[in-house]
Structure formats: structure tokens, C-alpha cells
């Protein structure tokens, strides 16, 4: 490391390596960007789905739950909720929170209107249909 390998060489490896892999990443990302709308059925993002996402974000659902494995680990995965439980159950569930069962983790009541609940459910349905390379392993998420 002392003499043969000079500081200038080390710096060139650093700059060259960073530049090369940055370009590689950008090229791959460009390709990914073209593919995402097909994989997630972006054409099915209706105003209801978009509004549902806004409600999911501004009520910090991912502060307790995961969606596609991202978020917090306090509460179940939401990617599978539509397929596992269906729209009627989700609506009833959201309206009946919190359970108040002693000691059990509680979910707040967000006081959504019926229309807002419809939007949230539309979003969860859309999320559940994204091609995630076969994840999660089963319907429990």
C-alpha cells in the first residue's frame, strides 16, 4: 500500500468507480421506470385510488403497518389485506377501531367518511395487484 499504490491512484479508483456505477444505476433506473407502469397497472390508478393513497399517507398507516414490506413492524402487512379479508371486512374493521381489548395493540379510529373508506379500500386493492415478484410468501403477509 505504501509506494506502488499512490494516493492519486486511490483517488482515481474512487472517482472512476463512483462515476461508472452511478451511470450504471441511472441506466437501469431508466429501464425500471419504463416497466413500472405495466407491473403495477398504473392505468388503474383512478381518482379514488389516488385519494386513498393520500389518506393512507396523511394518517401515517405505515407508522404501524408495512405495505409491500416497507413501513413499521407493529401491525400486519397491508398488501394482502384486500385479498385476505375483502372490502366489507376492511370497512367494518376500520369503523370498529379501537377495540380496547386490554393490553392488545390498538389501532386508532380515523373517522373516515364512507366515501373515504371506499377510497382507502380502492387503494389497498390496487396495491395488492402490483407484480412484486411473488411476495409475500402467503396470505398472512
Amino acid at each position, binding site marked *: 500500500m505504501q509506494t506502488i499504490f499512490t*494516493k492519486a491512484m486511490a483517488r482515481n479508483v474512487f472517482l472512476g468507480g463512483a462515476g461508472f456505477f452511478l451511470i450504471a*444505476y441511472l441506466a437501469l433506473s431508466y429501464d425500471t421506470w419504463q416497466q*413500472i407502469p405495466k407491473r403495477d397497472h398504473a392505468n388503474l390508478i383512478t381518482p379514488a385510488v389516488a385519494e386513498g393513497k393520500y389518506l393512507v399517507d396523511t394518517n401515517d398507516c405505515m407508522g*404501524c403497518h408495512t405495505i409491500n414490506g416497507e413501513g413499521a*413492524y407493529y401491525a400486519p402487512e397491508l398488501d394482502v389485506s384486500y385479498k385476505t379479508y375483502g372490502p366489507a371486512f376492511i370497512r367494518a374493521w376500520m369503523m370498529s377501531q379501537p377495540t380496547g381489548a386490554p393490553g392488545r395493540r390498538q389501532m386508532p379510529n380515523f373517522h373516515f367518511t364512507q366515501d373515504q373508506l371506499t377510497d382507502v379500500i380502492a387503494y389497498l386493492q390496487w396495491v395488492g395487484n402490483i407484480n412484486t415478484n411473488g411476495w*409475500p410468501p402467503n396470505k*398472512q403477509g
Partner: protein
Amino acid sequence: MQFKSQAVAKPYFIAALGLFIGQIILGLLAGFEYINGTALFPYLHFNMARMSHTNLLVVWLLMSFMGAAYFVVPDEAQTELYSPKLALATFWIFLIAGALTILGYLTMSYSHLAAATYNALWPTMGRGYLEQPLPTKIGIVLVMLAFLFNLTMTIIRGRKTTIGVLLVASMWGVALLYLPAFYFPVDTVKDSYSWWWIVHGWVEGDWELVPASLVGYIMLKTTGVDREVVDKWIYIIGAMAFMSGFLGIGHHYYYIGAPAYWLWIGSIFSALEPVPFLLLIVFAFTTIRNRRRDHPNKAALLWVQGETIMAFLGAGVLGFIITLAPVQYYAHGTNLTAAHGHLAFFGAYVMISLATISYAMPILRGREANSIAAQRWEMTGFWVMCVSMLVIASALAAAGLVTIFLQRYTANPLPFMEVQQKEAVFFWIREIAGLGFFTGLLIYLRSFFVKGGYNYAAYAQQAMSTR
């Protein structure tokens, strides 16, 4: 301290430690809600505690990075800071904006906070680590710009060393990589894909230059190693970090809706991500072994050595364990992730902050090193915090494994909440170890209140008499 203006680092370090206390208290509250979901629920929902915990972490780490930069850059550039006044002004703006934001998290529901800050005008709220309302996000950018202007002007006027330039460059990276926080597409896959530019881009890319250059700086100052050698190490560590980490981001793209080629690219390149952390260990330990002088600040050297080991365990070992695509298939979004997140953040970024504070604070207080008694408190705090964090990470990893085997890698998967109840013992262990961590933090903080500097004469005498 050679330059008067380095003193602006001091309020940054003190505030960072104050926010660290807050982070741990909120972590303890969030951890408590894992074992009892009803006691705190009327006052503090889990997500409020969690976002305060993670946001305080990010804010105090940024505070300490800024403090470190204000301390190191004038010294490296051999000139006074461009504007100490600006540095103090941004300090107060950052601290007050940060405190108000956390208060917002803790006192109102998130949707109220969103409405009160006009989130609908330009939605940005609702993503992990980026929960800040729009005004705070804009404030962060403005503070970063002022900070970068100050540092860059200092470097331009002064000597351009590798350590100084890379530290400033990495701070530019922090700011640039934060900008996607303003891009929040409705398309969830694009949203996640770009969210990782910030999170992965910070911790497994840009930020890695921070420990590399700060370990380098402390080695330079305490061991008498040649600058040339340090510079080479920093470049090589940085090169390995970027060459593995830029495509290693693919380990987050496996199962979020991105194309399948990321399974291969992410696995191959992220498997190399431990290399820079291993090199950091070799760098620190060989440099300390070959040192040409003994520095009286033993605590700072302990922090540096500990930081390289713990960063390797958290990022290198635990990160590697979960990073290959077939493993991620079962581990994705379990408490194994949290185990890794805790140990890696603590080892790589908390400990480099505490190492820098350990080296710089005595100097900022007008002495080369603290008294032996103070260092003893500090080193006790070091051990208690490190051991507690290892227990926290182990408990979370155990919980994650239970999830994998009962909920995912099984023919008869159980529902999430049922599995969580079976993990209760591990959440108890995490909470108790968390209290241990908090105790360690208090012991560490106690060291700042032991008066007096390092007494060379007394130390020499003691060394003679025990020979």
C-alpha cells in the same frame, strides 16, 4: 484548538446529545407499546412515538455531523470558518424547527398536522424518516444550504485536504439526496423506488464518507500516522462503499414492484457492501497499533475502535445475513430488519458521532483530554451502551426469526398478531435492554460533569509507581 471559530461546533454537539436523550426516551415508549398496547394509547399512538424516535435520530445525527464539520474543516483548511455568525444562526433555526416538528408529532394526530401545514398544496408527508411537514422540509433545505455555503467558502479560502474536501462533499451529498423528499408520486412503486434514494443513498452511500473521513481525522490527530496513508485509506473505503452501494440499492427493489433483474443485481452488489466496513476496521486497528505517539484521550480511541467493530457487525454482518434475495423473501419487513437497522445505525453513525464528540469536546473546553476519572465514566458508558445495543439487536433478530418460521416459511402460516404474541418475551428483553441502554447513556453524559482536564504529572507519577 487552533482556530477560534471551531468553537461553533460546541452548541451543535450539546444539542445533538440532548436530542439523543429524547430519541431514546421515545424509543422506550414505542418499545413499551409493543408489550402493552393499551396503557399509553389514549395519549400516544405507536406511530407518533416511532416517528419522533426516528426523526430525532436523523436530526441529532445531522446536528453532530454539522458540528463535526465545523470543528474539522477549519482545522483541515487551516483558516477560520467563513462565517461563525451564520453557523450560530442556522444552529438556532435548525434546533427550533426540529423541536417544533417533534412537538407537532407528539401533540396532534398526523392528519391534523398535515392539514395545519397545508400538506395538500404539495403532498410530501407520510413516508418513513420523511414524516416532516412541508415547512420543516423547506427549513431543512435552507439550513443545509447555509451550512454548505459556509463550509464551501471556508475550503475555497484555505488548504484543500482529502479529509476536508471529502467531508464537505459528503455534506453536499446529504443535502442533494434529501431533495427527492419533495418528489412524492401517487404511483406507490415509483414512490418506494425514489424513497430509497434518500434512505439507502444516505446510509449505504454518501454517509459512509463521514466515518471514513472522521476516523481518518482522529487517527491523524492521535496516532501520528502520515496523512498520505490516511488519505489512501479514505479513498479506498469510499471507493468500495460507492462501487458496492450504488447498485446494492437493488436489495430494496426485490419485492416492491420493480423488475426481476434487481434480484440478481441487488444480491451481487449488496453482498459486497460489508467490504468498506471491514476495511474501516483494518484501517483503525493497524493505525492504532503502529502509532508513533500515545494520545491521552483513551476514550476517543475506544470509541473509534468500537465504532468500526459495531458498524461491521450491524451493517456488514446483520446486513449481509438479510440481503440476498432468497433470504429477503422471508425476512423483508420483519423485526430482523429492525435488528439490523438498530445495530447498523448505532455502530456506524451514532458511534462516529460520539467518537468525534469525545475527541473534540475536551479541546473545545480548553484541554487536550479529560481527566482519567471523566474518561472512566465515558468508557463505562461506552460498554453499557454497546452491550445493551447488542442485546436489543439480538432480541429483535430472534423476534424476526419467529415471524419467519411461524408466519412465512411454513406450510401452515399463522396470522401476524398471533405470531406477535408468541414473540412477547423478546419484546420484553428489548425493552429491558433499552433501559440498560438509557442507563449507559446517562453514565456517558455524567462524564461531562467531572471537572478538570488530564493531569499529565499525576499520570506519569502513577505510571512510575506501578511499574
